[in-house]
């Protein structure tokens, strides 16, 4: 089955991170991606530019900003191919974002 791990974090707090902390986090992400690749579960992943770069389309109107104002903001996603939802949860728990934000795990409809 395929699952989407949606990463949510506090954008403002992340932008204020000290350079050293930023570097440590970057390393954790690299290691996580490497682990996913080695396990053969990574289908795709992408990081999103901040919500200040977001636009929202409703009918023909284009509004500035994200769809919803939330305490934490969507920052990216990982699409994984896993045998079951338990495996998806195990990968979610290892995701660096869970230490300071949240990972929403959403199964994907088969094509």
């Amino acid at each position, binding site marked *: 089955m395929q699952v989407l791990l949606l990463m949510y974090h506090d954008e403002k707090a992340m932008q204020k991170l000290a350079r050293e902390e930023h570097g440590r986090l970057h390393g954790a992400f690299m290691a996580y991606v490497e682990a996913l690749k080695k396990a053969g579960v990574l289908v795709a992943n992408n990081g999103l530019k901040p919500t200040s770069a977001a636009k929202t*389309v*409703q009918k023909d109107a284009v509004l500035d900003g994200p*769809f919803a104002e939330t305490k934490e903001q969507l920052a990216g996603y990982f699409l994984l191919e896993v045998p079951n939802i338990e495996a998806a949860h195990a990968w979610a728990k290892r995701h660096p974002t*869970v230490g300071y934000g949240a990972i929403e*795990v*959403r199964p994907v409809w088969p094509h």
Partner: protein
Amino acid sequence: MQYLLLIYNNESAMLSRPAEEAKQSMAAYMAYAETMRKAGVLVGGQRLRPTNDATTVRAANGKTSVLNGPFAETREQLGGYFLIDAPDLDEALAWAKRCPGAATGSIEVRPVWS
């Protein structure tokens, strides 16, 4: 440049539609995806299972919690996405406007880090 089109719609309204209407909506999405594929802009996309099937994992202060439900309760819910390759934001917004979900809900357009 790649853009993510995030599709937000009222999930309970979507799930309670008559079968015929759901079928028409599915066909509209298929046609939309096919148009983007032909235009060479479609990179990827997925339809998500409802937020009933969502779980949210956090581990602040080293204590891991796995809660049922999506990250946030919102008026409309994330139901899927398309990843597209467009020359600029205006083109990405033009594609977003043509998305069937734009007529009934919201499409958030977010540039992706390259």
